[in-house]
């Protein structure tokens, strides 16, 4: 199984309170009105009166084959072999914005020091197992965010699906 670390956002639990975004900006001391590593997005579906609003906390997806890594002229972005985290070396980055146009999710944002994006809080240190502690996950009051390896996240999703199926059965 993959050792890829992931942050999973459960749109069934997210209430769009922005706590993850605020925590991210505070922990990483992001200046106001500059870059933004994590954003809560909303989109609507259906037509009145059956309109549904969906909320999602979004940051870098740490893709398996990251478009940003291949287009970066300075070679400033790399995907770590040990845990799959995509990291940016801001010393190398020249801030050309090309990675924004390569990212399918429009994640990269910029300040005068270059591109800024989620590193799963790697820059704030790691625990004894060498894992970072993403502060958005720790902060989320509704526990809509999960952090773990691919296996662990798989389990979370399987459990969630099972609970849903059970609820459906009991309704019937």
């Amino acid at each position: 199984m993959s050792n890829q670390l992931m942050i999973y956002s459960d749109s069934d639990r997210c209430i769009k309170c922005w706590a993850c975004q605020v925590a991210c900006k505070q922990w990483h001391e992001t200046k106001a009105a500059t870059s933004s590593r994590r954003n809560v997005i909303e989109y609507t579906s259906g037509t009145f009166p059956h309109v549904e609003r969906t909320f999602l906390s979004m940051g870098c997806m740490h893709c398996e084959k990251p478009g940003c890594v291949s287009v970066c002229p300075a070679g400033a972005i790399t995907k770590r072999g040990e845990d799959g985290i995509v990291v940016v070396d801001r010393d190398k980055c020249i801030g050309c914005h090309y990675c924004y146009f390569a990212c399918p999710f429009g994640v990269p944002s910029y300040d005068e020091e270059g591109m800024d994006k989620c590193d799963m809080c790697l820059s704030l240190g790691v625990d004894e197992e060498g894992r970072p502690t993403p502060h958005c996950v720790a902060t989320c009051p509704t526990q809509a965010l999960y952090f773990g390896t691919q296996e662990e996240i798989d389990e979370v999703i399987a459990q969630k699906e099972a609970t849903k199926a059970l609820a459906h059965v009991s309704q019937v």
Partner: protein
Amino acid sequence: MTVQSMWGLEPAIYLFLGGLAGGTFFVSAIVRLVTKDRFPRLALISPWVSAGALAVGLLCLVVEVEKPLQALMMWKSFVNFGSWMTIGAWLLFAAIAVFGVCAIFSTPRLATAVESLIKPLKSARKGIVRVTLMVGAVLGLLVAAYTGVLLMAAGAIPLWNTALIPTLFTVSALDAGASVTIACLLLEKGSQTARSKKALTGAVLGLVAAEAVVLSVLLLTLSGGSPGQFVSASTLIEGSLSMPFWGLVVSIGLVVPFVLGAVELTGLVKNEELARILHFIAVACALVGGFALRYVILAAGIHGVMVSPDTQQAIMGVYNLIL
């Protein structure tokens, strides 16, 4: 739909000037090689226009990045040769060097000054000009195409993600180049320029027609494409960019030069002074259209994630995407 603003005016200026420089050098080099450098003003002006336009274009590119000084240290900043931007940066570096050398050796006074400094160059002037014209023509064509490849290779912009963009930019660059070359010939004294001017006007007509075809194919393909492509095409055709698109790109950039070129070729205008003025108007219109084309394509390049229901679904299912 608001237009994308991550790359604003400066990159549009660069895309235009890069195309203009490459196209001008390519077309003027061919004319100079074919006519054996018969036109002194063309020989003097065209390489300087190419080198100057490329230099200003690169300046626009450099000021747009967050760390301009670091970007200038190219050996440190452009190292990932898997990226088209790196290949393009070194291509531009080579092009401006060759254009510059060609310009210096095409300027009699400067060439004499350089030759007096470096003695062995004394007998090499003609050879240097010839070689730089040939190498520069190839580099010029590549620079023109690269401006489009840069956008195509970005990947996440539905409007740009097609080989039609580099095709469109290359054709438009050659059109601008042929127009500038005509303008240089108009400044020439004597009347031996008639044949070259006529050939170039014919080329402009062909290029304008080709550009119209590529543009139509692009818009038709996009209109029937993914939701992201559809939104971008609509922004150009009937949305917030429709005024500059129909007014500047199509009317001024394509229709006016085509009509004026056709009038010139049919010989309807007998008055030479009037014909000269019409030529200059056509050149100016072609350049305005060329810039407007880059600007609207850049601005309409709305990020897929902003418009596409597909992409929103992809975000929801992103867990499956990254597995």
